[in-house]
Structures are given as C-alpha cells and as structure tokens.
C-alpha cells in the first residue's frame, strides 16, 4: 500500500466538501479558497482547485461574477447558489455521520 496515495485519495474525497464550506462563509476569489485550503493542509497545489471549481459551477452548485482587480486581469468571485447551499447541508450531515462511523469503529 502506498501511504501517499491513500492520503491523496482521502483528501480528494473531502476536497469538494471543503471548497463548499469555505464558500459558505462568504463569496471568494479562487486565491482566497486556496489560502484557506492550504492552511488546513487539504490541498497541496493550486492546480487541483480549478477543475473542481469548474465542475461545481457546471453542476449548478456555484455561480461566479467577474470583478475588476487593481492589478492584473479581472477575477472570478465564486459564491454558493441555493442548490449549492442545500447540497452543502446534505454533505454536512453525511460528514457528521462519517465522523460518527469512524469514531464508533475506532472505539471498539
């Protein structure tokens, strides 16, 4: 078994949940999301984020608006849609269940 690979798989599983959680607080520019995720050590490189954002946006969970930046190109500010908020609620619930499940198994 490859430990790094297993860890990566685990991160992958929760990454989408983390992105939605970050966005649930306020609308964010991709860099803000990356900063938070990096702090929480769920993400290694920035490149991971972009395909996920595109996918979540195409799935209708996110929407974005362009905002001019003082320096550089305009930025995409992402925010949760109503659908995204509901989706996140479901994920919150199932995350709670997962944590409980792991706890239960480890306590035995």
């Amino acid at each position, binding site marked *: 078994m490859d430990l790094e690979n297993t860890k*990566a798989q685990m*991160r*992958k599983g929760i*990454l989408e949940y983390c992105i939605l959680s970050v966005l649930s607080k306020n609308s964010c520019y*991709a*860099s803000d999301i990356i900063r938070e995720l990096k702090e929480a050590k769920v*993400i*290694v*490189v*920035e*490149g*991971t984020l*972009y*395909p*996920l*954002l*595109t*996918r979540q*946006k*195409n799935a209708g969970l996110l929407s974005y608006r362009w905002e001019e*930046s003082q*320096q*550089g*190109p*305009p*930025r*995409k500010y992402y925010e949760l849609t109503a659908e995204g908020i509901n989706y996140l609620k479901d994920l919150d619930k199932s995350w709670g269940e997962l944590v409980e499940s792991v706890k239960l198994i480890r306590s035995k």
Partner: protein
Amino acid sequence: MDKTVKINLGGSLFQIDEDAYRILRDYLQAIDTRLRNVAGAAETLEDIELRIAEIFLSQKITAGIISRENVEAMMSIIGKPEDFETDEDETVPPPFSREGQRLYRNPDDSIIGGVCGGIGAFLNTDPVWFRILFIVTALFFGIGFFVYLGLWIALPSAPAGTSRRDMYGRKRSSSSGYVPSRNTQGTYAGSNIGNAFNEVFRALGRVFFIIVRVFLVIIGVSFVMTGFLAMVTFVMVFFFRYPGYFSTEAFGLNFFYLPDFLSYIVSPAVAPWIIVLLSLAIILPLLALIYWGVRMIFWFRARDGVIGLICLVLWVISIAALSLILFNEGVSFAETSKTSSVEIIEDAPQKLYIVCDNSIDELRFDKDISVPDENYRLYFRDDDKNLYVNTQFSISTSNDSSLRIEIRKRSAGRSKSDARKKTETLIYNYTISGDSILIDEYFTIPEDSKWSCDNVGVILQIPTGTIVQFDTVSENMFRPNFYFNRDFDSKTIYSSGKTWIMTDEGLKRSAN
C-alpha cells in the same frame, strides 16, 4: 541578448524570454493533457491562464521580460499537472479513438453536417479531399450520399471543450495565442485551392441541406399522417366496430366484424390472444412510422436505440406467436368429412309445394360476414351465440317415381373422425307435410361449437311429371339452379308463384 516572445495570457500581454516561453508552453500543454478527460477542461484551462497572468503581474520582473525563474516560481504555486488531484483520471477512452483523438462531426468546419470537417480534423488533413471523395462516390449509385447520411446520423457533433480538443488530438492548445504554431499544429493547413473548393461546396451544401430538409419534412408529415390515420382506422374498426365512412368490404369480406367472427372460428381461449398479437403486429409499425415522421420533421437526435430494439423484438415475437397460433388453429381445418342422409317418399305427390319455413330475413341477424368467392354467408345474432349459415339448394330429376330429399353435411376438423363428429352437431330442419316440403334457408351451428368450413346442401330429386310451385323465398333459394336449366329464360325466373313441371331435362315452366 536572448530572443524574447510576445504572448497573450488571459487578456494581458507579456514579453517572455524564449527559453522561459518553451517551459511555459510545455507546462500548459501538460496541463491540457492532464485535464483531457475532465469535464469543462477548456474553461478550467482559461481559469488557470488567468491565474498565471496574475501571478506574473505580482512577481518582480526584471526589464519587463519574464524569465525562467519567474515561470518556475509560478509553476511551484500552481503545481505540477501530475499533482492535480482530480478524481476523474480513470475515464475509459471513447470509441473511434486514435491516440487520444475522437472522430466527431465538426461544427466549426461544416458545409452540410460537418462529417468531412470531422474526418479532416481526425486525420489532420484538409477536409476538401473528403468532400470531393464523397461527391465522386455519390455519383456511383449514391454510395457517397448514403455513407455520408449514415455518418451524419452515427457521429456525434463535437461539443465545446473536451471533445473538441479530442477531435484535434491532445496536442492542440485550448485558447489564447501563446502557442504560435497552433494553426499548423492543431488543425489542418488549408491550401488556396482547397479554400476555393470549400467556398463552392459551402454554397452548394447550404442549398442541398435546405432541399433535403424540406424533402424530409414532407416525407415526415406524410409518415405521421399515414400512421395516424391507419391507427385511428384500426382502433375504431377493431375495438369500437365503427365502420365510419370508408368501405369495410375488402375482398368481399366485412373485416370489421373480424373480432366477433374470430371467437367462432378459433378456440375461445386463443381469440383474445390473437386480437392482442394482431394489434401489436399492426400498431407497433404504425407507431414507428409516426415516430420516424416526427423525427424527420423536427430533426432531433434521441437515445431511442434500446426502445426501438425492444419494439422490434416485441413485434417479431408477436408475429411469430401469431403465426404459431394461426398455424395451430389452421390444423383444425386439415381434414374434411361429409355425411349425407336421404329421405325417400315413395308415393310422391302429383303437385309439390316447396315452401320456405324459416328464412334468413326472419332471423333478425345483427351481423353478417360473407366469405369471398363463395355463395357463403355467416349470420350472427346478439341474442344467442349460435352461428347461422346459408344452405345450398339444388333440384334435379329423380330416376324413379319416388321423391328424395338428401341432406349433405360437410365439416372440417383435425381428423376425419373429428370432422364427422362436427357434422353431427349441425342443425338443419325440414318437414314434409302432405304435398308440401317446408325447408329452412339456413342451418345452425350451435353455441360452443366453432365454425369449421361447415356446409349443408339440400338436394331435391323430384320424379318426372310432378308439378312444382315455389313461394317467393324458396324460389330465390333454388334460383342458382335455374341458371343451369337449358331453357333458361330471364322472364320466367323473376316471376314468383309460377308453376313448374319436372321433366327429364329438369324443371320447366308449366303451361298453366
């Protein structure tokens, strides 16, 4: 001094060291390849380009030229493509794939359906050659035309993003001008002659396309109308027994009583099955016709393969089952048997009255079916389940002085004995009272007994010299015999109540 390259990245212009440019280009291509099977790849790549531009703008750049160090710093932030943790890596390679390319119709380069454009992109060749090929082969029995039509239907149109990139192969960049070789690397290099041809084809193609569309709409409308009318007819006739304004007498058979008739000619258990299977066998193709018509009119693509297949299988099964049932039922008509009974009246009356006792008119039947090419008619009544059939009559000269009445019955069955048994169930009534013979115009197949080509014939043999009189109905019953009478006279036939005399040569008009 090193050479520099100008690039456009996410809407911003940069000057970049040639060395650094090469690294950047390879890096973007690696990301492009990495995202090959990820949905929304083009958009993701644009986002990443924007981010790269932003990183460059925030970096310390010496003399306005992006150096190798700048690019490497950017790469460490974004990360190596192989470290991107997307969970869509295990996508199965699609069909028609060749080294990461897929065969699609190309909406970017289409004249009719983009088939040639797609093939051109797939083989990295100018599509004009395929256009010429299709037109040339279309001249040979329209081969090219049909192959084109087939490909048009079979090939999906390349959607934006992943597929379109797949169409050109993984080498093609997604957007922006940072790869100067894009035009030669990705898509074909168009020649001047090719362009001229393409313009001509494009114009011809539009005209052709409109003609084909109009043609298809006309066919589609006629399909839908035909299918719809046929279905309405079928349903009305078969399930509501509504003859409407159209003739139901096809080939002399009123087919709209078929469902009623069916319960008399087949075993009662299979009659509903025959109706259901027959309905399927007729309605399924009509539905298909309507569906195809609608598709031709509105020209949409649908995932109907499975449903179509199910319908086809269902149709084949119902046809097969129907044939099997009908064959099995047909076997019950395999053998025929005849029985005959003769009553001989030795002291025959000098004057004989032939009277119809029970006529078909008095039967008050509700439906009737005539069997083609025969003087054979079946009558149904709603009050009872009996089946009434007209009887055949003939009259001839007796070879002695006695009067004979012969009743011949014929039936079909699975075996001779079956058929013989059946004849015994047929009911035919006649009475002789004094100098009168009272005969029925029809015989009866009783309830619970199905029709099996039953036939009853009445043969009267009358001695020479007997005076014969008919009534109106009985004269009609024997009328077919008059046609064979040698002194046939049209005037005499239609005068009822006349007196006839039996001679050696058959019935003749009596003098008085």
